[in-house]
């Protein structure tokens, strides 16, 4: 059995209905969608059972009402993306840095650019935006328009 379908079966067994969507578009690729409340549990489960340690990056994107957050992991030859939707009205996610220490800078990056608040982050300072950047302006949100200069 391939690693992809093994992960698929184990995840469905352990989390059942909580796995909202699961796609395997091709070999080495996997997209899993879970509710916001389950993010830490699923990552911890995958870390224990599938040796999940390598986080490639975190993507956040503006989908209108929500912000979609995708954690791109790589384990046993599979690039596994764990996605969840965060409502813009309350854009708060829990930090995963205690589980995956390499997440520290990626969480700071999405805080700056998409305006997500990462709860309990060990170092929530700005990462990429200048110090005098206006509060509450998040350049990668769709309502931020670039003025062609």
């Amino acid at each position, binding site marked *: 059995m391939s690693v992809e379908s093994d992960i698929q079966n184990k995840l469905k067994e352990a989390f059942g209905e909580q796995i909202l969507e699961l796609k395997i578009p091709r070999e080495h690729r996997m997209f899993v969608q879970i509710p916001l409340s389950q993010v830490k549990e699923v990552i911890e489960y995958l870390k224990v059972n599938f040796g999940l340690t390598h986080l490639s990056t975190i993507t956040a994107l503006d989908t209108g009402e929500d912000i979609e957050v995708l954690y791109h992991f790589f384990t046993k030859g599979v690039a596994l993306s764990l996605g969840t939707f965060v409502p813009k009205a309350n854009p708060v996610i829990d930090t995963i840095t205690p589980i995956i220490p390499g997440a520290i800078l990626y969480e700071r990056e999405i805080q700056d650019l998409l305006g997500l608040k990462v709860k309990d982050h060990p170092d929530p300072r700005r990462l*990429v935006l200048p110090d005098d950047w206006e509060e509450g302006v998040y350049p990668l949100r769709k309502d931020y328009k670039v003025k062609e200069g």
Partner: protein
Amino acid sequence: MAVTIPIGPQHPALKEPTNLMATVDGEKIVDIDMRLGYNHRGIEKGAELRNYIQDIYLCERICGICGHSHSTSFCQGVEELLSLEVPKRGLFIRTLVCELERIHSHLLWLGVAAHEVGFDTLFMYTWRDREIVMDLLELISGNRVNYGMNTIGGVRRDIADEMRPQILRGIKRLEERSQYYLDVASTEVTFLRRAEGVGTLPKEKAIELCAVGPTARGSGVEYDVRKHDPYAAYPYLDFKVITSDRCDVLGRTIVRVLEIIESCKMCRQIIEELPQGQIRTKAPRKVPPGEVISKYEAPRGELIHYIKSNGTNQPERLKVRAPTLGNIPSVLYSLKGGYIADIPIVFAAIDPCLACMDRVIILDTKDRKGKQQLSWEELREYSIRWYEGKEIRNPKL
């Protein structure tokens, strides 16, 4: 007593702008922090405002050293969204440029590393030999940097049969020289004293902090996208993943030099086994809705592009994570407990590319808190005035 000293953003020891705050007790570094973002250029936002063809060239300009990495990563992502099969010859030529780019980047790094430890003879040697591979890249693409080889569906320039002997000659010379550099890096006392046991990154830490590329492989982590998530022509090529258990600057150096030799072998195999046929297929301008992850082993490590399409000719979102950002937690870890004099070489040992890492300042003509920012027009007028002041007649721009 501990003192905090700022290094950068403008500092003679740094090639690109960044800021390190080193807290030192005497000569020892007790803590170190880093401020990024001095080179943030808004490329991810810019990509959303341009079409896919324009984005290839935008991506290529993320980095001046490994531009081909970014354009390949972007193109193969879009090709996957389009379910487009690239002709085998196109894949081979694309991979040839990938490997030549790795050779030039690693030789450049070796020179920089030698310079950082005060071994300038080696710096001169490696940069002289790097010209061989720069000439080959120019022969193939017409450019020394920003090759413009990639397009969605394949590559833009073919390799003529007459070029093959010249490429093979160049590769042979590079291989000989790299063998010599391997001897130098592993036996020359001047270099060993400055690299052995410096900037230690244990294997467990490298895994925990998600290190990538030669930084991870120099600490014994066997992870190479070319092998573990093969793309382009790598499934057809014979090569080894180079690792070292030394976990220090010397380990990272040996990994890179051996990778040059391995890349030379791959280039030779590509030239010898270059399939016949087309170099590209025609790609539609509009991309159906979907999402894709494209991974690539850039000279500095794993590069990842996430592309989401929405059915138009512009991407909904492009996310780029360059390998340098992935290695920052590791380099901060390995600097701690070291000496001030080791900062340049330890920092250089991850082969930092800040242009790749930062990517995005947003051009904003609003005058914020009295700080001067120039719009494109203002900048152009300023440069015209500056040149006129130098009495250089400027043709109408």
